């Protein structure tokens, strides 16, 4: 009889515990199915593409010694991307002509600019520069030219060339890496905050909406 009573009491308590919503502290997220819109997919798919606005793209210019200024143009692009517009303009107004790795490092150090570089063709550096959305200036064409690496995936390297800054070109990844290493493997980037990604919001009902649907942005075909 006692056992029956105890069991009845235990059953009552169990039912009541369930009814009150449980006494435990763990709670699940309860994440249901989230519908990801095409626009959000596009934003997330292009997170690792440095999309420098056309207004900030600079045509390569001739310095006072009659040399092209591709190294400085590539750096100016990166500073604009990292939001340092005044600094980029200041640098472009005071620097020009060809540049060596040593010369540029000395100038950057004198100016107190924090930067990162590789001169040994370290691919991990390029991966880091793209992974953190900073981009890099990379040497190509047997060391005679410098361009911006604005994207790097399994198949392609996306290149912004100051000689034709209107369009970003996709090079086969292997071809680019070979060219870069044969050119000395120099890559440099300022270590500033990368640009904020395109924003999107989660709306009621788990729908995700991009904020830019009403103003389609101009994008390069890659």
């Amino acid at each position, binding site marked *: *009889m*006692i056992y029956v*009573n105890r069991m*009845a*009491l235990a059953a*009552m*308590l169990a039912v*009541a515990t369930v*009814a*009150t*919503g*449980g*006494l*435990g*502290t*763990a*709670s699940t*997220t*309860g*994440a249901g199915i*989230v519908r*990801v819109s095409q626009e*959000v*997919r596009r*934003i*997330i*798919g292009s*997170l690792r593409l440095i999309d420098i*606005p056309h*207004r*900030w793209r600079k045509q390569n210019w001739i310095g006072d010694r009659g040399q092209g200024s591709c190294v400085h143009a590539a750096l100016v692009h990166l500073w604009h991307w990292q*939001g340092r*517009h005044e600094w980029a303009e200041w640098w472009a107004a005071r620097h020009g002509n060809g540049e060596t790795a040593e010369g540029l490092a000395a100038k950057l*150090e004198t100016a107190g600019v*924090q930067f*990162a570089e590789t001169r040994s063709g370290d691919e991990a*550096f390029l991966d*880091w520069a793209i*992974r*953190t*959305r900073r981009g890099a200036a990379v040497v190509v064409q047997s060391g005679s030219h410098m361009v911006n690496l604005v994207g790097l*995936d*399994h198949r392609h390297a996306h290149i912004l060339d100051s000689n034709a800054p209107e369009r970003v070109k996709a090079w086969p990844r292997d071809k680019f890496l070979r060219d870069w290493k044969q050119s000395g493997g120099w890559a440099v980037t300022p*270590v500033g*905050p*990368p*640009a*904020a*990604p*395109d*924003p*999107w*919001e*989660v709306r009621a009902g788990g729908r*995700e909406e991009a*904020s*830019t649907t*009403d*103003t389609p*942005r101009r994008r390069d075909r890659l």
Partner: protein
Amino acid sequence: MRKLMLMMVVSVLAAGMAAWNAARVCRAYDEKILHLESAVAVTYAAALERQTVQERVIDLPEDGNQWHTILIVCPDWKSRPAERRAEAMFHSDPLLASLQHQTHWHLITTDQPEFCKFRPLVDATPCLIVERANGEVVYRESGPELGRNSHGLTRAIRREIERHCPDGRCLPLYPVPREDGNPSPDEIPAVLREDIAPEKKRTNPILLAAISVLGGMLGLAVKFRRAAGV
């Protein structure tokens, strides 16, 4: 005469002793100076070496998943009290200053090309947007009231983070599969993570009291029956 000779010997001995002592002190000073000079040289060399290392090698920041704090203001924001106050709040309030340092900070004016992508979200300036590394907006507030109550703002941001990332767990950074297949690491800025604890489910106190009373009554009934020998 003997006395005179004795005095001379004593004075010569004293002079010798004094000279020897002076030489010893000088040698000790020389050694000390030499030691100090070498110590300074070592320190200087070490400082030079450290300086070179600091200049040439830096730890590459792995901040690809860091959140972004974006304050959008007018081009002439410095002459607008509300916008100036909103900007100053991120320097004066310790929590917001920490947020600024733990996220990528952007002060964007409405005449910059970067503003285009935020335009649909901005009703008025100043406008504060906190977004994850994949662009998901976690918090948004705009208008002249923005800089009035920094503590209220911090609380509001935390509330929104709890809504977006319950128990500190956010949606995957990449809803489309990531190329490397790795899960997204912990990404909420530490300053906003401190107060986030799993929310305890509320229990109904009336129901609990009723259960206790019922249990007690049942126990008494059992005891009564046992005492009555039924």
